[in-house]
């Protein structure tokens, strides 16, 4: 437990700050899935489902599972970007922390633990709302929460590692514009990757969100056929996301140490 003492202290400080802002974030974790599922699932879905060559499941179920993973990505990515830059540069709260027994690695691991808590909450709410809208069954939806959290963590950690090497926020906006948004659109969230032009498919298979989307679908939609999910085994997705998370966590700790301890 001694090794986790520092990170847990960092979680406590995050929690104290969160007490002031939780209402806004909590409300958006309810409202966002509701808006997206209504518009994309019910609105667009009613047209998709009446067309030819369907998915074998409702479009609502397809897009809800995709959005669950995408929402983990977006929240995870956001956790790794601006709050980290603020801690380094704007509010300098990291500098304050490392003047105490807390180390840069404690900050990174602590924020990682905090992301687990936040992502779990967001995805449980997402699953519950999807159940209410008849997009998923409750038990599979809850089974998809841990894979969703893992997807979010892969983004939190890799983007934290990226952020600690950046001088200012311009590159963060660029990352969201040219990284996160294309992933959101082309990683199988809204349509199967098999619909992409052939030369783009390998790129899509290489992205972390694709593995997150696949993983969530394989848990949330048991028995989905090959129009919905690929034949790639679950362990491949898991190894990919766990490896990305672990390597990023290690690099983020090292690079933050370098950044803060000049």
């Amino acid at each position: 437990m001694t090794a986790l003492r520092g990170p847990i202290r960092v979680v406590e400080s995050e929690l104290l700050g969160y007490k002031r802002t939780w209402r806004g974030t909590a409300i958006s974790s309810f409202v966002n899935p509701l808006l997206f599922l209504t518009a994309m699932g019910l609105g667009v879905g009613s047209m998709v489902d009446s067309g030819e060559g369907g998915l074998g499941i409702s479009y609502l179920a397809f897009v809800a599972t995709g959005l669950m993973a995408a929402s983990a990505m977006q929240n995870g990515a956001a956790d790794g970007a601006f709050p980290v830059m603020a801690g380094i540069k704007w509010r300098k709260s990291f500098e304050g922390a490392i003047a105490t027994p807390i180390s840069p690695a404690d900050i990174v691991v602590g924020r990682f633990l905090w992301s687990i808590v936040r992502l779990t909450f967001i995805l449980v709410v997402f699953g519950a709302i999807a159940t209410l809208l008849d997009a998923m069954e409750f038990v599979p939806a809850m089974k998809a929460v841990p894979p969703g959290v893992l997807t979010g963590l892969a983004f939190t950690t890799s983007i934290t590692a990226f952020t600690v090497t950046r001088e200012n926020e311009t590159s963060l906006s660029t990352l969201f514009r040219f990284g996160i948004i294309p992933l959101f659109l082309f990683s199988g969230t809204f349509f199967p990757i098999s619909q992409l032009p052939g030369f783009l498919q390998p790129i899509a298979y290489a992205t972390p969100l694709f593995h997150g989307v696949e993983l969530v679908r394989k848990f949330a939609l048991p028995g989905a056929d090959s129009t919905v999910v690929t034949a790639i085994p679950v362990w491949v997705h898991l190894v990919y996301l766990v490896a990305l998370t672990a390597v990023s966590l290690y690099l983020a700790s090292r690079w933050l140490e370098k950044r803060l301890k000049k």
Partner: protein
Amino acid sequence: MTEALVEARGLTKKFEDFVAVDSIDFDIIKGEAFGFLGPNGAGKTSTMKMITTVSPITDGKMTVFGLDPTTQGRAIRQRLGVVPQEDNLDLELTVAENLYIYGRYHDMSRASIRERIVELLDFAQLSDRADAKVDSLSGGMKRRLTIARALINDPDLVILDEPTTGLDPQARHALWDRLYRLKQRGATLIITTHYMDEAEQLCDRLVVMDQGKIVAEDSPRKLIQTHAPREVVELRFESGTQDEHVLKLDGVAQRTEVLADRMLLYTDDAEATQQEIERRGVHPEQVLVRRSTLEDVFLKLTGRRLID
């Protein structure tokens, strides 16, 4: 037997080709207030950062509490109180919450933090602002809170990097008063400053730093005695006429310094010097006689003024 809390030998910090701290030696003894005096860029902050283990040592040796900053940073920081040059309080939290988080970082129990917060708010004269957001505090209050925060763990050594820079005179005096009390309670303090009056007020012993090197080390009084005659006669002339007067005043004092806007004459007998000036027929626009200060010591040692 005196106990050294910090011992540095040949301590060096380089940033690529730039040498910020150039092989300095010093000992900081338990119970003293030790000053690092020098202009901006002298290497004071780099030295502080090495002591607080947040900057790796490039070369040389240092121990803090007998521990090695490179491998035992956490154990050292557990016993330090650090007041950074720029406040890094959490602006979104309240005064009490800022103290609370620091207590938790130091692994204190909630109950002992609560007790300590009451004492520290009283010490920092912020008791009535406990639940105010830090954002709403004045500069002087924020500074006092930063100092209170550094004391949460009852540190064995308190490091203050330019504690009063940027404060108005009233806030500075209020802060000095707090630091003076801290000293009376037996705390060991390290203070960096580019204010001479601050060093004279607070430090038992100090080193003068310039361009990464220590150029003198002693008590403020001894430094003045050694490096500057007792009194200074400051002369200001009508603008544009200083140069012609400077020649006429050659040798009237033990040492003279010619600055852009005035001339300084160092002497043990100001009255005799003034009579001599008169005798040579020089009539400055303004004459000011004062005691020598550390500022004069610094000028002599480095040929430059402390604050440009």
